[in-house]
């Protein structure tokens, strides 16, 4: 089944990217998390008319992508997934607004989509997922949720393999069929739930054997000066560019 297969490939690709070693990968995860959030907030705070103000924000993804060795094509492919809803809203702007305004806001919405999606993807492509959940724990997100996120993530591949096997078995026995029939889906997913329950039982037993008592473990490493500099530079530049329109400035010089 295509989407299950693609999803697992996607996760392992992102995991491999996050395992690389580069200047960006070395930055403290908390620094990357904070600066990414500041960046996204600033980007979405622009009004829908202001394209020239948004354009300079392209520096962030471009510089990070090339410093962190992330393939452009890979990010672009992932971004396409996020497009339909934005595209619909953007096109509606063209329809419901005067044409020039509509076009301007359409471009702004698409630009915002690319910038925000890139920011999130760059974060996950340069930071191992367990590091991010660890930061959430430090940020006082309840440990039960942090544990849950880490474990859900761990068991994704297991359950996806399980579903993939069942799906293949089903499709092989049904001639000329794209998906599962509606009348069978209850049994199919029901079986998957029961398998999940059994799996969870075994997971719990083996975790218990290794001393699990509901505590979330993670090693805390402090931020270095360079990490703080990174936050200040990224957040500072983002806020500066929010106020100062670089594109118009450059255009004005010429």
């Amino acid at each position, binding site marked *: 089944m295509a989407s299950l297969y693609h999803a697992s490939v996607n996760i392992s690709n*992102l995991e491999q990217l996050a395992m690389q070693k580069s200047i960006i990968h070395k930055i403290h995860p908390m620094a990357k998390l904070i600066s990414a959030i500041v960046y996204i907030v600033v980007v979405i*705070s622009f009004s829908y008319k202001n394209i020239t103000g948004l354009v300079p924000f*392209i520096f962030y993804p471009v510089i990070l992508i*090339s410093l962190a060795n992330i393939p452009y094509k890979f990010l672009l492919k992932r971004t396409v*997934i996020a497009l339909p809803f934005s595209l619909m809203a953007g096109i509606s702007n063209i329809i419901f607004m005067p044409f020039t305004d509509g076009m301007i806001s359409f471009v702004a*919405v698409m630009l915002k989509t690319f910038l925000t999606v890139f920011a999130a993807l760059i974060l996950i492509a340069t930071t191992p997922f367990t590091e991010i959940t660890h930061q959430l724990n430090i940020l006082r997100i309840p440990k*039960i949720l942090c544990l849950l996120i880490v474990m859900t993530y761990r068991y994704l591949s297991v359950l996806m393999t399980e579903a993939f096997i069942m799906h293949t078995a089903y499709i092989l026995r049904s001639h000329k069929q794209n998906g599962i029939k509606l009348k069978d889906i209850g049994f199919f997913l029901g079986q998957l739930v*029961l398998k999940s329950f059994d799996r969870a039982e075994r997971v719990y037993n083996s975790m218990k054997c290794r001393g699990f008592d509901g505590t979330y473990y993670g090693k805390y490493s402090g931020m270095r000066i360079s990490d703080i500099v990174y936050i200040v530079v990224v957040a500072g530049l983002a806020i500066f560019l929010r106020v100062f329109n670089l594109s*118009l400035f450059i255009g004005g010089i010429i």
Partner: protein
Amino acid sequence: MHMVDALLSPAVGGAMTAVSVGAIGLSVAKIKNTSENPDKFDEKKIPVMAVLGAFIFAAQMINFTIPGTGSSGHIGGGILLAAILGPFPALLTLASVLLIQCLFFADGGLLAYGCNLFNMGVCACLFAYQIIYKPIIKKWGLNKKTIFVAAVFSAITGLQAGAFMVVLQTAISGVANLPFATFAALMQPIHLIIGIIEGIVTAAVLCFIHSVRPEILDNNISRTNTVRPYKLLIIFIILTLIIGGVISIFASQLPDGLEWSIEKTEEISGIEISNDDTAENIVLEYSPIGGIIGSIITVALAGSIGFIIHIAKKQRKQTGES
């Protein structure tokens, strides 16, 4: 439908995140309450929740054919999780699934996470499940008929509420210029159909589980309910209004601050700088060409910086190898 960052205003994103964090906090407190030892929650539940979270993730990728239409669909799973795990653990499970989806698959966004958790998690698990599924099962007992009715109606309600929230969040954010009524008229009927299908599939899965392992569903419903659903809903609405109000007050004060700083910068640098309110004038009247040329140069500049870093890295690698 996943809400995306690009269509949100910071105020709406912030308010929804705050409300969703509240819902998560409530759920964590509830789970700790129901376990025997309040200090250490029932740690056995975590693997079950995590594995079922992974299950929902996988299940959302399995398409089934919808008879007579030629199209295919997949389940959302909010009601299914709530019926199996109970509403509060289900919400936490969905929270972790949505976070993974948001980071790894660009479904939604970091700032839209709060919106998505509310639209798909709170609306299904804490609202539809509590006001429809649970009362029906409690009143008429657990059998195939009641499961079917309860699942279909709660799935419809959950999705209608979620779709309406998407419309509301988009409209209040004001990034997309969709007229509220048109957007609602588009979203609600689509989600009615999706809701009916989701309900039927959820019912089929639950009926199967009920006939094979009835104890899974029994355990959950027999637990006493300490929070009244109506109360919960009212609390959430009030919370959203308060937080939204506070943030928008700040947001409305912020432009003044911005204007002030822009004036200052203009004074110092002697350059006219755009500001949101005048951006349109500047783009359209003041110097459209300047803006466009400036933007193109900026993009080119960014691109060349990326290219230079790329080349520099390559050379460094080559010298390192030789």
